[in-house]
């Protein structure tokens, strides 16, 4: 049997390794996507005071510490049974929208975008952010840097630091917003709306306007019919900070919505001996192996799945784009994974609109930003929607609020099974006997997982976080025939 190894997978956050096994005929027999790390947060957070969890769990992932900060703060609220003042919740959400704005911008322009802007088979040295800037113009490069800077400015203003914010505590936040800061955020938000619209236009021109790319998006290679989940508000519209998790089946039928306390009735995780990361699935449907369809409990939690699991967007411009998205792609749900890049830009627009809504909320500069917890702490769950999937923190404490047990189901982890399936399908579709396995082709295999924007720094919270990748081809005896790698 022949084996192809891709290690490390580049341009995603964290480490990973793909093994592709070919059969005697030269076709793909099977693929394995392995995560080589674990760090053990669920163990070593035990014994720590619960109010430190928003600071400790930040360090699960430096790419999305804001998501862990928020989920931890909400779980700590729940542990104490305390409801933060309305202004405090809005301030947390405002910080979170600044983060989403930066994060989605980074992914589109630096991580996922190069495949489309430069083309999947462009030379390796050009398939990066600098290649994108070179092609679309320095002016756009300046806008991208500005967009990232604005998002981080908002995070720093409200969270105290650009990376690993420190202001959320049980019952609220430690930092309010001055009128001058509010005005600054409003202006950045308005600029952000225009930037998001510009990005959607760019996507439309470069990708939707190119029949080759459109075929790639709509083709079978990158399509899987799975369940989808995502956080929604009371009107079933996409929400990143609060609400209930909507679950829909591959036909788009809503199976139900669960609140934080009910997550364990809906989600279960499977352990495989060949990787450190677990595979979550829908408990009520069950694990049926790496297979899609209604009978399989495998689900996805990404920008695309949030759109599929919701009935719409809560802001007007994003809602227009939501409608256009489903009209263009032939109705709900959309199963084509590469459409995730488009869905991410619609969320970028929502984040910018929501920024302005919150920055113009008259309560946002209120000094009432903390409620002192008075109940005895016990147990609580916090859920937010991280950019890379639904994020669940579950804590148990003693009567002093010292952690006795911790359970975490992290953004990218939700998507481990669907990513694995996407890699297998792309490999099976693209690699055949007598096919020349070149860099461009291997990159198209990598594109299968890049659409998910996987962050294995995050997913390996139980093991340490990195994520480069390597593809090796091995013969029927398991011996490496050739190792394919990309040159810089």
């Amino acid at each position, binding site marked *: 049997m022949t084996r192809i190894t891709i290690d490390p997978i580049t341009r995603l*956050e964290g480490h990973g390794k793909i*093994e592709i096994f070919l059969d005697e005929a030269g076709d793909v027999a099977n693929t394995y996507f*392995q995560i080589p790390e674990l760090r053990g947060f669920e163990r*070593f957070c035990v014994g720590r005071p619960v109010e430190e969890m928003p600071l400790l769990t930040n360090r699960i992932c430096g790419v999305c510490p804001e998501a862990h900060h928020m989920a931890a703060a909400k779980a700590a609220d729940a542990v104490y049974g305390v409801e933060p003042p309305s202004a405090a919740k809005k301030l947390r959400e405002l910080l979170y929208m600044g983060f989403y704005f930066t994060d989605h911008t980074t992914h589109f322009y630096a991580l996922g975008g190069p495949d489309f802007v430069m083309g999947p088979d462009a030379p390796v040295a050009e398939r990066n952010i600098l290649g994108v800037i070179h092609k679309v113009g320095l002016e756009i490069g300046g806008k991208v840097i500005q967009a990232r800077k604005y998002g981080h400015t908002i995070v720093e203003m409200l*969270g105290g630091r650009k*990376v690993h914010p*420190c202001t959320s505590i049980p019952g609220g936040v430690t930092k309010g917003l001055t009128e001058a800061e509010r005005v600054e955020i409003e202006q950045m938000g308005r600029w952000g709306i225009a930037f998001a619209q510009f990005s959607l236009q760019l996507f439309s021109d470069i990708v939707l306007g190119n029949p080759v790319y459109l075929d790639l998006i709509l083709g079978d290679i990158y399509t899987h019919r799975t369940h989808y989940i995502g956080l929604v508000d009371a009107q079933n519209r996409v929400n990143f900070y609060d609400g209930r998790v909507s679950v829909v089946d591959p036909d788009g039928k809503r199976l139900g919505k669960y609140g934080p306390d009910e997550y364990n009735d809906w989600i279960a995780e499977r352990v495989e001996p060949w990787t450190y990361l677990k595979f979550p699935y829908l408990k009520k449907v069950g*694990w049926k192996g790496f297979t899609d369809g209604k009978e399989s409990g495998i689900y996805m939690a990404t920008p695309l799945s949030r759109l599929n699991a919701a009935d719409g967007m809560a802001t007007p411009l994003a809602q227009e784009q939501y409608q256009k998205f489903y009209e263009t792609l032939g109705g709900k749900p959309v199963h084509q994974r590469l459409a995730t890049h488009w869905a991410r830009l619609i969320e970028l627009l929502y984040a910018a609109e929501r920024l302005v809504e919150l920055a113009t909320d008259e309560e946002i500069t209120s000094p009432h930003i903390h409620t002192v917890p008075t109940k005895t702490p016990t147990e609580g769950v916090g859920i937010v929607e991280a950019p890379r999937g639904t994020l669940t923190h*579950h804590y148990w404490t003693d009567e002093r609020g010292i952690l006795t047990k911790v*359970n975490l189901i992290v953004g990218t982890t939700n998507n481990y099974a669907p990513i694995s399936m996407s890699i297998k399908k792309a490999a099976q579709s693209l690699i055949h006997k007598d096919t020349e396995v070149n860099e461009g082709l291997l990159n198209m295999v990598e594109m299968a997982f890049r659409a998910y924007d996987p962050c294995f720094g995050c997913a390996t919270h139980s093991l340490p976080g990195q994520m480069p990748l390597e593809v090796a081809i091995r013969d029927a005896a398991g011996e490496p025939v050739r190792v394919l790698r990309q040159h810089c």
Partner: protein
Amino acid sequence: MSKNGQAPKEKPKFAMYWAAACGGCEIAVLNIGEKILDVDANFDVVFWPVAMDAKYKDVEAMPDKSILLTLFNGGIRNEENEHMAKLLRQKSQILVAFGSCANEGCIPGLANLSSMQEVFNAAYESVSTENPQHIRPQFSYQVPEGMLTIPLFYPVLRTLDQVVDVDYFMPGCPPESHQIAAVIDLVIAVLHGEAELPPKGAVIGVGDSTVCEECQRARNIKKITKLVRIHEVAEVDPDLCLLEQGILCNGPATRSGCGARCPSVGAACIGCYGPAVGVVDYGARLMTAVASVIDSTEPDEIEAILDGIPDPAGTFYRFNLAHSLLHAARPAMEEVIG
């Protein structure tokens, strides 16, 4: 990473790598904004997995000492981390331990308080895990198509200088962007013959005092009669020293350089910049500082107030357990010794 990827030969080579890390150090580097273009103009970026396509094999093929500068972040948690640390040491002229994990072990170093079995049990027997056969990841495992391997997980996390020789130490979780920019400016000045490198072993990108010296909060030498936890305080005085309000703050023991960011937004310093100059034992220094604000001379009374610290190990060794004299607790060390 010049626009065509074919940088002129004379440009010195730069690499950045993450071992057991969260990625925040990479984000902090990206956050230096336009300054990143200076890096591009002065260096040939040959290896940086988060940002560009290049594989391990490419590094292995490079001549020894061919990379001028490598920023290494993350702790040494498994055999792959150790392999990359040794490989990059061999290929680099200047190796910098970048960020708290590589310097001190950081938050993931708290795993050294537990045994590997405890770490695995928490992950693979959690309430949401369906694992009736108690499966654990295997370092090598035979699947029908062949043998699959994953890196060996070590019983304790080690810091970079516990594995290889390190030239410079740059702390912070993550290092602040203005400090990164200053270090890049210095290195570029050295390249142009306009400055000299600091002595080997120097701590770079930091101040030379404590976080308290950078903190804008007033210190009135006020004494406290008890310690409180931050969420228990109805209104934190925005201008007064947090420690003098009874909130445990790590400022007195922690190296300056961050600009006292956390105290400036009403949160206590948690010590991410590591021990201040001359501090041998971080925990002992912090304990002394706390004791000095307690309004009592009675040892029993002082002890009772210190009992208000709910998690001494996590408070005094939050970021530096792996690099401290303690290094690891008994359950983890027993696995190391065997």
